[in-house]
């Protein structure tokens, strides 16, 4: 069994000879060392890509409105040309299912890709760490600064860093709230000190969350709060690509000169430089094997590869590999052949099915919704002509982006009709209206007290846009 690193401070013996040990550990701050390499470049690219999208999207316009806007007050979600109503919630559910299935799929294939490259916690921590590096300096400088006494210089540097962090955090909060209420109007409100209480609260809340999580909590979120780390073990299998240290190749570790013959000296490839530990954002030693704290960022791979290159050893002492490959079940070069296996095939198929259903149903959505509500207490009435009349209230929702006229009709009983010459209603773009209709039928044509009827609403300019709803026509017992 591997040795464990206890994070407890050393116990101080009590006077009576009892030993007291605190069970809650003070956090040891981690100073990740900067690293460059293939995976570092991927991470930078993804930070830039995700943040350009996140910070940029609310500023795009579509016609005369914001292109991406989840307008909570209006209760409409705008995504470019698509307008989603609360009744379209099922597609949000579909989106969540697609997200979950794709997460399971790529995690089964290549481990914690989400954590290491795309998760906002990682992305914002990297952003804040970059700011810290630019202002405070590299790893050694940062550690020295923290140990130094409080001089004017230290105060200035620390204040500059905090100011930069707070500025980024507030801008993030502002952008986030700008997805839910028009961002330009929000900006004007901020500048004129006219911000409403709720907007203020949420901007500060998200700003504080960004500042707290990315500036201070960092790996504590991954290690203690996020459930994803804990259930990764059920999403991995022995063919999942994980970042791992090649123990067979690296051990026994030890420093040696570059020109030395390591095989003759009986040493493995690992020079015990400790760079893989220094670059790790969660502060683990990957040489101990797969750990739940490892977010799969690949910084240790980049760090070790650089050293291997300097030593003229082959790269990949720390690399992506699978448990089965390391155990020798198949050669490493055939790893990709094992990507397709029952687990991934099932996830992939399910994902494909759900994505197809999602796209097809969304594309074929009828831009019209109708609910029919029968008048409750006043069940039915007899008109002066001897007809039986029921009152219904139609809630018609025009989900198209333009005003439309809709034709109303009823069917289900011989001669049933809508009274008072109500044949047509007009609705504004993205509007909804309640239209009461009086429906009359000749009692001679009625077969009982309850007769099912159908109410049809059809767009005048497009017969394809129509909805038929069912209701019941009541008549007195004869």
């Amino acid at each position: 069994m591997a040795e464990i690193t206890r994070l407890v401070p050393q116990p101080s013996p009590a006077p009576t000879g009892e030993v007291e040990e605190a069970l809650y550990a003070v956090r040891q701050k981690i100073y990740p060392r900067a690293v460059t390499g293939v995976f570092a470049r991927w991470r930078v690219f993804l930070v830039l890509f995700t943040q350009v999208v996140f910070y940029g999207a609310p500023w795009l316009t579509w016609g005369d409105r914001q292109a991406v806007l989840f307008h909570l007050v209006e209760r409409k979600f705008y995504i470019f040309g698509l307008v989603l109503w609360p009744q379209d919630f099922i597609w949000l559910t579909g989106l969540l299912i697609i997200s979950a299935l794709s997460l399971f799929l790529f995690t089964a294939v290549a481990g914690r890709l989400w954590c290491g490259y795309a998760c906002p916690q990682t992305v914002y921590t990297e952003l804040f760490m970059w700011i810290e590096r630019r202002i405070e300096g590299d790893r050694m400088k940062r550690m020295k600064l923290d140990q130094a006494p409080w001089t004017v210089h230290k105060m200035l540097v620390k204040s500059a860093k905090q100011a930069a962090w707070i500025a980024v955090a507030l801008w993030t909060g502002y952008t986030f709230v700008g997805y839910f209420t028009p961002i330009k109007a929000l900006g004007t409100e901020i500048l004129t000190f006219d911000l409403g209480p709720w907007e203020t609260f949420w901007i500060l809340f998200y700003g504080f969350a960004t500042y707290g999580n990315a500036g201070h909590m960092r790996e504590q979120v991954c290690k203690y709060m996020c459930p994803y780390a804990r259930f990764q073990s059920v999403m991995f299998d022995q063919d999942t690509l994980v970042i791992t240290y090649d123990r067979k190749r690296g051990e026994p570790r030890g420093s040696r000169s570059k020109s030395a013959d390591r095989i003759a000296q009986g040493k493995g490839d690992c020079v015990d430089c400790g760079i893989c530990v220094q670059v790790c954002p969660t502060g683990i030693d990957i040489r101990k094997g797969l750990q739940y704290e490892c977010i799969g960022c690949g910084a240790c791979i980049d760090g070790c590869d650089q050293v291997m290159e300097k030593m003229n050893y082959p790269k990949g002492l720390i690399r992506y590999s699978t448990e089965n490959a390391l155990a020798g079940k198949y050669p490493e070069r055939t790893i990709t052949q094992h990507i397709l296996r029952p687990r991934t095939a099932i996830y992939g198929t399910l994902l494909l099915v759900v994505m197809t259903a999602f796209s097809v149903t969304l594309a074929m959505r009828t831009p019209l919704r109708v609910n029919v509500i029968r008048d409750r207490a006043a069940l039915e009435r007899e008109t002066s002509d001897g007809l039986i009349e029921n009152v219904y209230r139609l809630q018609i929702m025009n989900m198209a982006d333009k005003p439309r006229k809709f034709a109303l009709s009823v069917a289900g009983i011989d001669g049933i009709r809508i009274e008072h010459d109500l044949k047509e209603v007009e609705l504004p773009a993205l509007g909804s209206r309640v239209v009461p209709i009086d429906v009359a039928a000749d009692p001679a044509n009625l077969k009982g007290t309850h007769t099912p009827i159908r109410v049809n609403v059809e767009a005048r300019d497009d017969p394809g846009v129509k909805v038929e709803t069912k209701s019941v026509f009541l008549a007195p017992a004869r």
Partner: protein
Amino acid sequence: MSDFTSGGWSLYVAVLTLVSVIGCAVFLKITSVKRDGAVDKIDTMGHTWDGDLAEYNNPMPKWWMWLFYLTVAFGVVYLILYPGLGSFAGVWGWSSVGQYQAEQQRAEAQYGPIFAKYAQQDLKALSQDPDAHKMGERLFLTYCAQCHGSDARGAKGFPNLTDNDWLYGGEPEKIQESIANGRAGMMPPMGEAIGGEQGVKEVANYVLSLSGANHDAALAAAGKPKFETVCGACHTPAGTGNQTLGAPNLTDKTWLYGGSEKTIVETITKGRNGHMPAHKDMLGDAKVHLLAAYVYSLSQGAAKPAQ
């Protein structure tokens, strides 16, 4: 007002709550230190699963511990400010009744001026105002549609408010009176006074003849004198009705309970007891005023059915 008969229960609840909340903090403090001397051995939680799977007892981060203490502190502060310790009302004196009253006051402050503005306007003018119309419509749908239908065209026993046939008068002030004070549309059973089953049949046919409906002429002729002497007291001998009493006009084609012979016979034999509840106390004068204007507008022809 406490539902408990003894004040001792309040103390019981208070003590239990405080002991639990503060006990959490005490428990946390006690268990955050270990005293057993052996620190070198690898410390596991003590259970093994699947043969050799064990769980280390690694320390939790200190910030978690401080967050826990913070929640305990929050709990204590909360219990001082809000009710939670038995019948102690809390320093801020919050109650759900108080919250409701505060909400009512806010609504009164916000909507009161609007209602007051409309309450002063003349009903006929108000019936033309589109905003007042919308408010009246919403009020109607909430309070009146259950009986009169959401299109206000009524049902058996509940008058049609969109026509020009009024039992008590269709002037705006009369409508307001009906809504505010209610109406009792009582017709006494007249079977005995009219002359039994045969007499009722004759009078019913005469009534049908008044509005030009199909009837038996012989029976109607026999019923005419009976109608004029007995029924005419309320309905006038000509049958045109009396709005002071609320006696319907029998010469038109509008029937509150139905115009078939069978229904008219039932009406005469058993009487009728229509009841319009008084809304003054429930709604207040301002809302009644708006409703009166709205209902009046319905019978003026230009108004559309309720939206």
